[in-house]
């Protein structure tokens, strides 16, 4: 029987083999290796033995979950909270801007091709450069963000009309917001990430918009549907498969985000703070700076399981859209 299968499918199997081997070497083996590492006491004292380090079972997992004085627990809950907020805001912001941008450049106008190309610019900038650039841009006095918002646009004066409170020093000068320290740090990492990734969402939505037949809109217009009604009852539902893909991509990319935060706060030399630290920088510190590879691997494995559940929930939510799309 086996011989029959081999002779019947020899060519297809040979074609599939490189992909299967690649999958094994690049995904399955590292995952298994990570799981094994998570059950070893692999730290600086035992690094020389590497995989012969003492087997400790689920001890590393217990440390993370139940040992409040464990090193990895220091700042872990801040990092989890920040990662959840960061993922939600970045994914949401990317989708909103992506749809907005796609609707704008989907229309016919002179120079549309140039506009589409220019809008892609932030996407082609490497994320570590984005982190460094925005690190300068967010500075309180010298940074261009505060200079634009407060020195040029006088946002404080504009918003004081609607009751927003701003702090002033003893001689009446505005104390501009600090973006790189304190609670604002979260926005300092969310906004550059949205800025970098929204063109990707725009491209995806543009592809989605192009696939919607014009006849549907024409029919809706003949039935008297307004533009906003057309958007909410035609465009948005038909873009759900695209939204599903961007949500998935956003969830995974943002939970595993590292570069922008690391580069913005001292190129790995500093600490992003209670409101800027994310899970990946946290795990990196524990693994590579604290030399606790076992605990770091346990943390990564737990995150992988959580992400599998999240992806499962995502699939259940969008299953119909994906099969219809």
């Amino acid at each position, binding site marked *: 029987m086996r011989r029959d299968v081999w002779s019947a499918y020899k060519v297809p199997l040979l074609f599939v083999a490189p992909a299967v081997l690649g999958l094994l070497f690049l995904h399955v083996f590292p995952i298994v290796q990570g799981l094994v590492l998570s059950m070893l006491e692999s730290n600086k004292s035992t690094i020389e033995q590497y995989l012969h380090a003492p087997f400790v079972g689920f001890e590393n997992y217990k440390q993370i979950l139940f040992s409040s004085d464990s090193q990895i627990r220091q700042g872990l809950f801040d990092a989890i909270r920040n990662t959840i907020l960061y993922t939600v805001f970045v994914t949401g912001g990317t989708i909103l801007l992506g749809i907005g941008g796609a609707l704008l450049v989907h229309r016919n106008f002179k120079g549309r091709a140039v506009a589409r190309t220019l809008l892609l610019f932030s996407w082609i900038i490497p994320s570590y450069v984005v982190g460094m650039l925005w690190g300068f841009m967010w500075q309180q*006095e010298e940074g261009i963000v505060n200079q634009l918002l407060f020195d040029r646009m006088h946002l404080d004066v504009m918003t004081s009309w609607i009751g927003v409170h701003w*702090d002033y020093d003893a001689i009446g000068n505005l104390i501009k917001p*600090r973006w*790189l320290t304190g609670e604002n740090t979260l926005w300092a990492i969310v906004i550059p990430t949205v800025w970098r990734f929204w063109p990707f969402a725009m491209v995806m939505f543009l592809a989605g918009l192009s696939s919607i037949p014009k006849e549907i809109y024409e029919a809706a217009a003949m039935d008297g549907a307004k533009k906003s009604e057309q958007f909410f009852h035609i465009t948005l539902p038909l873009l759900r498969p695209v939204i599903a893909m961007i949500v998935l991509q956003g969830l995974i990319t943002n939970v595993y985000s590292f570069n922008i935060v690391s580069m913005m706060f001292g190129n790995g030399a*500093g600490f992003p703070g209670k409101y800027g630290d994310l899970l990946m920088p946290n795990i990196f510190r524990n693994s*590579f700076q604290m030399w606790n590879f076992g605990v770091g691997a346990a943390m990564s494995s737990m995150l992988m399981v959580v992400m599998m559940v999240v992806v499962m929930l995502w699939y259940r939510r969008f299953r119909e859209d994906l099969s219809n799309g």
Partner: protein
Amino acid sequence: MLSGFLRIAFCLGFFLLFSCAPDAPTGQTKVSIWVLPNFPDPQRDMEKLIKGFKLEHPGIEVEVTVLDWGSAWTKITTAATAKSGPDILQLGSTWTAAVTEMGALVSLDSVLQGMGGEDLFVEAGMESARPRASDSVTSLPWFVDVRPLFYRKDVLAKMGVQPDSIRTWGQFSKVLTGIHNSKPVVEGNVIQAMGYPGKNDWNVIHNMAPWIWGAGGDFLDSTATKSAIGRPESIRGILFYLGLVRQGFNEVRNLEKNTAQVSSDFDEGRLAFWLDATTKSIYLDRPQFLGGTGKSAAARNYACMMPPTSPNGNSRYFVGGSNLAIFRFSKHKAEAMKLLEYLVARPDVQLQMSRASGFLPTLIQTYDMPYFRENPNRQVFLRMVRQGQPYPSVHYWGEIETTILTRRFGNIFDLITATKPGEWPETKIIEEIQATDVEISHYIQQQLDQAPGLRDRLVSWRRGHQ
């Protein structure tokens, strides 16, 4: 079909075999060295430094690889784990103990004795070369650096202050108050009293060290088996240093910058005082076309002084730097030792290194040369080296410094920047320092638990050095 494959494989093998270049010209031994970017032009300047060695040892070829600071630690530890790496490697002085603990370095006791013993080198350099828990010297100090207080002579002259009169914390505060209140304008710039960076920088701990030590405190206790950062003396030192922000001498906005950014404020003539490594003087002295700051107001008017002493008369300064070690798995140990000796034990080479990099020699004899004897700034550096100390040379210091202290002080800087003008979060700062103390002690305890006998070795080291 199969024979076709074999033919192709044979041709490829033949091609690969004969296209490979030999390691070094015939008869030469190739010694590889990994260094960090120590010079303005790291590769070229390092090649220049070893040019003399190549002439003296025509049978030895030296291959220099410059590692990036960001990835060096990972590469070195990977090499140590994989038992495959260079013959010689540069180690930051705080890394030596950790790499020694991994068993990746050769003992250099006999080499050191052959050179003339430990007394040849500055004491602070030797402290990091012989990790506390190790019986052997596992690296030799290559260069050290200290962090003097750079100041503007013209600004002090305008304020009517003699630099020599700034000796204590009180005198320093008084001068800073004067500058802060009068806001002198020099060459179109309003001068701020001083600047230091905040949470986005490795240097935070180095900058804070002299104030903690000066106040009689420390990071770890004398045996390095327990934290000492929560002691009242340590807290007093930290609060004095942070108080420079509270009093407005260092503007809060500097706390979100890194060293390079605040340093450029000094270069551009906006700061009266600035703490930096000795390498800064190289950039201030160099013309712009060589990457220096040229004839800027700061470059024309700067000088260096020792950071002031605390009210109880203490003054101890942080001494950093780098050591050179021989990799245990090196196949050319004898040649590597020759190169090592050339770099650390030759005054002419030490001088050449110092002139090119701005770092300071570890070989004491070098300081007798006119380059050091006749320059007042370098005399300040030398005095600081003599009164300096490194961080404790224990394998777990790196994690304490780069992860625990960096994170905790990051939190403290966040507390300060989140405070409204006129308020000061002193209670919260002290709480954070005490939490740091608990965390460090707990971490050290974990390390001691994993290394039986380590505590005893550290305690006996302390007894031997009292």
